[in-house]
C-alpha cells in the first residue's frame, strides 16, 4: 500500500468513527470519499439507476445509524461500507424478483480492471492476490463466483444465466471457493 492510500484509509476510518458520535460533517466526509464506490456497488447489483440511488440513500442512513458497530479490528472502513451497500442492493434485488424478474447477463460480471488500487482505498497487495487466485480457477468456476459476488445472484439465478442445473453450479462454486482459499493461504 502506498503512503497516500494508507493515509486515505486512515482518514476514512477516523471519519467513520466520528459518524458513530453523530457527527454530520464526518458523514459528509465519508460520503465524499465513498459515494462513487458504493453507488457503483448498488448500480451493478440493482441494474436500475433509480433503484440504485434509493438504495444508496438508505445505505448512508444505515451508516449514520450503525456506525457504532463498525469494528476496525474486523474490517477496513471501505469493506464495512461496501458490505452494507452490497447487502442492501441484494435485498432490493431479491424483493423485486417475484414481481418483475431482473435479467441476469453474465457479460456484466467483468471486473473493473481499470481501478487504480494505489489511488483508491484498496488493500493493494491483497487485491493482486485474490484477483490472481481467481484467474487460476477454471473459467466457469470463476464466472459463477463473480456472478454471485458482483451481481448478487443466487444459485438458481446463476444456474439460469449459465444454462446449467443448480447442482452443477453449486459444485463449481464450492470447489472454486475451496481452491480460492487454498490459493490465498499459499501466497500469504
Amino acid at each position, binding site marked *: 500500500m502506498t503512503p497516500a492510500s494508507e493515509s486515505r484509509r486512515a482518514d476514512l476510518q477516523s471519519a467513520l*468513527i466520528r459518524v*458513530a*458520535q453523530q457527527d*454530520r460533517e464526518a*458523514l*459528509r466526509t465519508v*460520503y465524499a470519499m465513498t*459515494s*462513487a*464506490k458504493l*453507488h*457503483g*456497488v448498488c*448500480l*451493478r447489483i440493482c441494474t436500475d439507476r433509480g433503484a440504485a*440511488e434509493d438504495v*444508496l*440513500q438508505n445505505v*448512508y*442512513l444505515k451508516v*449514520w*445509524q*450503525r456506525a*457504532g*458497530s463498525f469494528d476496525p479490528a*474486523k*474490517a*477496513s472502513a*471501505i*469493506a464495512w461500507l*461496501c*458490505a452494507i451497500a*452490497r*447487502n442492501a442492493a*441484494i435485498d432490493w434485488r431479491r424483493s423485486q424478483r417475484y414481481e418483475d424478474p431482473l435479467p441476469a447477463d453474465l457479460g456484466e460480471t467483468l*471486473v*473493473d480492471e*481499470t481501478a487504480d*488500487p494505489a489511488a483508491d482505498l*484498496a*488493500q493493494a497487495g*491483497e*487485491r493482486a492476490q*485474490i*484477483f490472481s487466485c481467481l484467474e487460476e480457477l477454471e473459467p466457469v468456476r470463476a464466472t459463477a463466483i*463473480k456472478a*454471485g*459476488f*458482483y451481481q*448478487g445472484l*443466487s*444459485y438458481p439465478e446463476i444456474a439460469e444465466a449459465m444454462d446449467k442445473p443448480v447442482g452443477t453450479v453449486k459444485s463449481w*462454486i*464450492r*470447489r472454486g*471457493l*475451496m*481452491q480460492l*482459499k487454498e490459493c*490465498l493461504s499459499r501466497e500469504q
Partner: protein
Amino acid sequence: MSSDAMPERSALAAELALGLLEGADRASALRLVLSDPGFAAEVDGWRAQLAPLYDGFADVAPPSGLMARIDQAIDAEAAADQVTTLMPAPRAQGRWKIATFAASAVAAMLALALVWPSPQSPGPAPQDKADVAVAQLTGPIDGLLLTARYDSSTSEMLVRVEGMPVTETEPELWIVPADGQPRRLGRLLRGGVTRIAIPEGHRKFIDPVSELILTMEPKVLPDPDKPSAPTVAQGRLQRI
C-alpha cells in the same frame, strides 16, 4: 469425496458470506451463526478474504443532490425523536413530505409503546414527567424481534423477545452510547418479557444517540465488559 471438495460447514460459511443463500437455507445458516461461534468466525473469515474483491466494483458518481436527500432523511428521523415539539409547518411540498414521514415514524413508535402494559406501580404513582424511551431491535435473523421500553420513573427496562431460535448460546443485551463502547445491560429470557434494572451508572446512556444491541454469548460470559460475539439485532432508542 474428490480432492477439492469442501467440508459442508465451510461451504455453508462461504456461501453465506458470498450472499448465495436464500430463504430457509439462509435462515438456517444464520441460526448456525448464532449458535456456533466457530461457524460465525468462519463466516467472518470468508468475508475478510472476499473483501478485496470490492475493488472490482467500478466507481460511478451518484447524482449531485443525493447527499442533500440523505441529510433530509436524517433530519426527518431526528424530528421523529422530538415528539414533544410541534411538527414544523409545511413550507413547501418537500418539507411536507418529511413531516409526514416523521409523523408516521412517531406513530409507529407510539404503537410500539402501547404494546406494553403500563408499569406496575405498587408505590407512589410515577411522576408526570417520566421519561419513556423505546427501541425495536432487528437483525439478519428472520423473525427475531426485540422490543424494549425504558421508564425513567422506575429505571427499569422491559425487553420482549420474539422469534428467538434454539441455540446453545444465551441472548445478552448491551447499550452502545456515543463513545461506541458497549455496556452490558444483562441476559435476556429467550422468550417473553425480561425486566432489567438499569444500574445508575448506565442510566445516562439512555438517549437517542445510544443503540441497543443483542449478542449471543456462551453460557459463561467470557468478558462482562465487552461482547465476544457478533451483533445479531440492533436498534436505536427513541424517546416518546
